[in-house]
């Protein structure tokens, strides 16, 4: 791919708190569809985005069982963009900030997520065409 890009995203928000993490994953999904190489540095609450312990639940207010509700699980979205990038000739290197993981007990992540440090974020940015920081507010 002649115009293949390498993009780095720094994410900071925990799942289920706002739309920023959803927007970030939508952008990552577009990059994955284009076969780009994608780096993600998940910092602070964002380390819970790929947390393997997320479970769908029924919603009695909606009158739905778990299957009908189809509750969004960001861990599945992370897995989906990793697969999508690979399918299109790219890759996702998802790094969870190790200390952020430790202080939250968020070590159980889906496959394809690795533990790292802020130094990984620096190296990712240096090797990328551009870096998008999506901070918490």
């Amino acid at each position, binding site marked *: 791919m002649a115009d293949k890009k390498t993009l780095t995203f720094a994410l900071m928000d925990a799942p289920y*708190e706002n739309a920023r993490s959803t927007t970030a994953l939508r952008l990552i999904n577009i990059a994955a569809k284009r076969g780009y190489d994608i780096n993600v540095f998940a910092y602070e609450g964002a380390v819970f985005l790929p947390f393997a312990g997320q479970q769908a639940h029924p*919603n009695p*207010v*909606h009158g739905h069982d778990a299957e009908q509700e189809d509750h969004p699980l960001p861990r599945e979205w992370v897995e989906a963009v990793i697969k999508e990038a690979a399918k299109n000739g790219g890759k996702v290197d998802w790094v969870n900030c190790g200390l952020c993981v430790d202080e939250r007990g968020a070590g159980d992540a889906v496959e394809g997520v690795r533990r790292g440090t802020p130094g990984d974020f620096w190296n990712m940015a240096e090797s990328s065409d551009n870096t998008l920081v999506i901070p918490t507010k």
Partner: protein
Amino acid sequence: MKALNIIETAYRGTLEEQDDTIVWLTHALKGAGADLDVLLRANAVNYAVKAQKVAPLSFGDRQQKHGPDIANDIAGLIAKGVGVYIVKDDLAERGISDDELIDGLSPVSRDGLAKLLDGYDHVWHW
């Protein structure tokens, strides 16, 4: 005991939760026997707009079956006997007309808020 939930922050996490967490909480509390109402103010007045529609999200091969339907969730509160007040001034500032809204709302002006709030034992501003 009678309580009023004031919802001001709108669309916070609704894509992932598939509903507004305070609208959901109000449903749950009502179901548990609570006597409470809701006041929609600021950007949350948009929760009562009928025409809003959210397409299901998709990431790679993962497709959600449906998105949030907050106007319907508000209508469901009204059907359960929860009073849903909405600040008229906030609607006007956003150019939202009455015919765009779901049925059963109780419009209130900002001038009338102090009197409204005085009718509750608890006022919870989310």
